């Protein structure tokens, strides 16, 4: 009987902790939402990082392609 009670108490504790953790996460997300922290992170951190990445990315120069390429040759390569 005691064993069963212990098990029940343990389960309740785990449940309580899970609910508590979810509540904290929910409150945290609401704070992010309300204070527009997602926007601030994206604007001040993510976008400048991505911009730098794309500005410095090595790209093929499409202008170097001859204008009179033949489509069928492209298909053969595939």
């Amino acid at each position, binding site marked *: 009987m005691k064993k069963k009670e212990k098990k029940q108490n343990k389960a309740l504790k785990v449940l309580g902790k899970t609910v508590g953790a979810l509540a904290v996460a929910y409150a945290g997300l609401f704070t992010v*939402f309300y204070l527009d922290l997602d*926007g*601030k992170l*994206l604007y001040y951190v993510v976008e400048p990082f991505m*911009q730098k990445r*794309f500005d410095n990315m090595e790209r093929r120069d499409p*202008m170097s392609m001859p204008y009179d*390429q033949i*489509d069928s040759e492209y298909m053969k390569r595939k």
Partner: protein
Amino acid sequence: MKRFDLKKLKDLDAKKLAKDFWYGKPHGERRLGDLYIPKTGLYKHREWRGVKDTMYYFNNIWLYNYGHMVTDILKYSGGNPKGLVQFVKGTMRYRWMGQTYLTVMHWFDRCLEGMRDETLRATAWHFRGIVSACLYQIVEMFNRDITLGGDPEKWRKTIAHDETVWGGVFYGFPDVAHIPLQMIPYFVTCHCNNHTVLNYIDAAQALGLPGDPCPMCQAEAGIFLQDDVPDFFPALVTTNEACDGSVATSVIQDWMINKPLFAMPQPMQFDDDSVLENCAKEIEGAIKFTEEMTGVKFDWELLKKKLQDQNELQRNEWEKWDVAANTNSYPINGVGQALYRIFYSQYGDMDCWHETDAKVKKIMDKCVEQKINTFPMTRHRVIAWSCAPLYYSAWCTWAYNCWGLNTIINMDSLMFDMEIRTDSYENCLLDMAKYHEWAPMRRMAVGGLQHIFELWENMEKFNCDMVMMYDQIKCKGMQGVVGLFEDEFRARNIHAIWMPHALPDKRDVSRAEIRKIINDYMFTVMGEEPLDPSLLEFDDSNSW
């Protein structure tokens, strides 16, 4: 340092504060402009809309859509986690994706500012539909992109097309994906984050092209010049829609892509019945080309089925227009209405449109039954005409919040205004041709004077008392009719505000300039005072 003012605290009305907390502030007291951080368009904090609507926005819009921006990737990848990997690769490779994708929720914010109750809910569903359709296209592109290790088998069964080629042309092909080349990289990104498109416009001009042609064509060409297009297709279909400027884009695309291309020209002056058969033959040619390139046989029954599904979307749209025209209970704001309509009628039938329509219809029916006035601060019912500024599609939301200008309908929503017959192959093809001729900017803007002047009948039909006349300063076609419109506005005694803009390029006419023009008209001509003076002037020059 600011000293704490005890007197101010004593003056606070606790009852009013509690009411504002619970229900949100009434329209005239919101001061939405005070929420912005100067230049950025970011919020000091997001708007408090009362407990019910704030929690709805947080749970059912913000959390829900952020969540679905991940789950949709899996859904459209058929549950394969490799889809997520491809998605991340694409995000890190393409500027239009990497800089834009995560800013989507701020696009929602801008367009849904000040919205409450049913209007907030229904408009947000329209946006959710658009985002889902965008994710479908993005996932399909990246899963096929052979430069990112995509699936070559899927690559083979894909047709790319100009965004102005109606997706219905490809309805009859099972297992063939049709993906517009520019709809996501150009059109959608301008709305979510207009920073990226400027790179592409500059790339086209760096080539030596002059700065004054249509910036849409410049940007679409610039994406290719910057080598920023995924390789997801073996062949493509192009068109001269919306105008012949688009042909110049196709020439550059053809050069850069170097794959089999089917050009599907559509007539400008489409009233002549003799051109319809020609146009139908072009569509038939595109169908045959798709068969040859993908090796998949055209299925007439499938085409019929998809067109019937699309006709259902059109009937839903007519019901929405009926409510918008004849009641005060239409629950979608101007920008939500316009973007949803242009997206689904151009790209074509998808399940997500039907799901969205079902949800919106439920809300709309409730509004009509209970006679809910969905935009209670409406002072003027506005029809927006010609093509809109992509970098400031949220002007409708601003104009309602600031001045009570409620945009009921706009020109591009009215273009594909027809059902397509499926009783015989011949009739079907002719209707498909007509549908294609009635494309955005083609049907009214370059289809002939009688069509651009459909404004007058639509103004009456939708019970509008004011026109927001878009003036795309780089559109040579529309520049030619400015004087004719001015004469008509005077003769008909219609209040019309000319809104200059440069489609995707905010550097030519800024959003602040657009607002100033509207403000000036409302003060000086209409003699009205703003509902929310905090929105008259603010600096959002560097915002998304």
